[in-house]
């Protein structure tokens, strides 16, 4: 594996900088003053139980939820004046009902919209990018299939292709492994790892680290809208065995010695 660029090197603008971010949902505080910096080419996992605020953090970092307090800076630009959206690839939580009647290629093409001008048709470059992205996730032969014909794991790969088709510098994945069987999780880990090696920064919200473990440079554990632990997966795993102060965060972390994926509900062949 080639060495990754130093994410904290001098003069390097962080990909994402969140400072003292507080978010209310339905009047209730979900994030309480979170700060997080993600450097170039860095892969950060956000871990925590349901309601810990990890999804809210990535969604408000992308401007999908309004912040009550705090600042978000993407590639050195405050969120409000950030326009280089082609540098961001977002994989939302997979909805249970995919878009009715769209083909795989049509869904993936949406990932090029930040690069396209309105009223202009797709270019040959756009089409080639869609083909490449589908090949990357191993769905090159399914371009013309209706997304509803695909399995859950394949649909997840379509969403990842859509996020990567614009060649972003930051990939944000919200629970990409939920409901995806181990085989597809490995494909996903493989695809993302290859792009991280090429300098892509990744923020991934996870319930279970699973096959993504080797990818993660740093894990951030959230609880009740606050960061309660931060460090390498090994450090966090260690601290959770030695400190009893955060017992409720522990069960969300994957233990390296346990075969990953066993507790995520997937039935293996």
């Amino acid at each position: 594996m080639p060495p990754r660029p130093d994410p904290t090197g001098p003069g390097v603008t962080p990909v994402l900088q969140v400072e003292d971010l507080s978010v209310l949902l339905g009047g209730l505080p979900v994030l309480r003053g979170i700060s997080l910096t993600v450097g170039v080419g860095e892969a950060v996992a956000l871990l925590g139980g349901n309601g810990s605020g990890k999804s809210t953090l990535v969604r408000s970092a992308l401007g999908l939820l309004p912040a009550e307090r705090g600042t978000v800076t993407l590639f050195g630009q405050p969120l409000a004046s950030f326009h280089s959206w082609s540098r961001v690839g977002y994989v939302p939580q997979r909805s249970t009902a995919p878009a009715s009647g769209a083909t795989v290629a049509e869904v993936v093409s949406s990932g090029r919209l930040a690069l396209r001008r309105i009223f202009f048709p797709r270019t040959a470059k756009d089409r080639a990018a869609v083909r490449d992205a589908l090949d990357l996730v191993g769905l090159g032969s399914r371009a013309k299939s209706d997304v509803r014909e695909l399995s859950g794991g394949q649909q997840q790969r379509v969403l990842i292709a859509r996020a990567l088709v614009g060649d972003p510098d930051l990939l944000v994945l919200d629970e990409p492994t939920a409901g995806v069987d181990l085989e597809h999780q490995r494909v996903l880990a493989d695809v993302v790892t290859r792009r991280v090696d090429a300098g892509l920064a990744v923020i991934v919200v996870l319930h279970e680290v699973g096959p993504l473990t080797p990818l993660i440079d740093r894990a951030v554990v959230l609880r009740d809208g606050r960061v309660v632990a931060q460090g390498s997966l090994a450090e966090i795993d260690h601290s959770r065995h030695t400190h009893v102060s955060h017992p409720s965060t522990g069960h969300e972390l994957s233990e390296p010695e346990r075969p990953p994926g066993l507790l995520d509900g997937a039935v293996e062949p």
Partner: protein
Amino acid sequence: MIDILGYPFMQRALLAALLTGVIAPAIGTYIVQRRLSLLGDGLGHVAIAGVGLALLTGQAPVPWAVAVCVTGAVAVEVLRQRGKATGDVGLAILFYGGLAAGVLMSGIAGAGAAALSQYLFGSLTTVTETDLLVIAVLAVLVLVPTLGLAPQLFAVSTDEEFARTQGLRTSAYNIAIVVLAAVTVTLAMRTVGLLLVSALMVVPVAAAQNLVRGFYAALVAAMAVGTTVTVGGAVGSFYLDTPPGALIVVLAIGVFALSWPYSALIARRRRVAPVLPELVDDDTLTVHQKVPEEHPHRHGPDCEHAEIRHGDHIDYVHEGHRHAVHGDHYDEH
């Protein structure tokens, strides 16, 4: 057919029908995608207030209907975006308020329900040259953004949050969709009428989604179905002496009814053939005593057998072993 085209009123009727048949399903594609199939119906009610206002003030109905309907559509969408009107109740008040106000105003104008009925049910054969011109201008105004912004509107109406992370101003696009729908509703009020216009925005789209695969293919197919049924309905009602709006909608539903079994047939053929089954070594699952065993039904999401995801397909648990549907039979997995 020749004698039909000999009548100038029928020429205008056919052109108006054609334009409606192109436009309504085009914008309807996004409406259906956003699961707002009944929006057109509600906007039709609001447009009635515009017609009533025009009757009361003695002016041309179409511009007033457009103005009132667009205003109502924007109000609905802005309220929805701010989370103030959570669908149902706010919409119901606006829509029935529009209907009541329209009937009330036309009553005060002394025109009564009869004057309204040509807008409620359409009045294709009384379309004037001025009407036709207005319809044509509105049709172009709707069609250019509907087709030109198709990639953006597709993204916004299928996955709004993702569209925002592509830098699209989704609230503007969403308002554009309802404004285009509002203009379409008023444009169609002379052809199919305000009470049936929603059918023309939804039914050809539903039929097209059964007939073809893919969003853009369905958009084009919906326009083709729409054109066929509006022109067919206009011609048919000339010979059968029936109300054209009603015949158009009945034809559209007929096409949908025919598309249904076709789609079921195609869906069956398209079902993913499983990849070569791996040999499964699983204690809990037994191997068949007799292969192939008789099986009374075809496994599917509707059968009572438990589903297990197996790689990229679904297996169905049958008496302790697993069946994977493969073409017209099943494989043992």
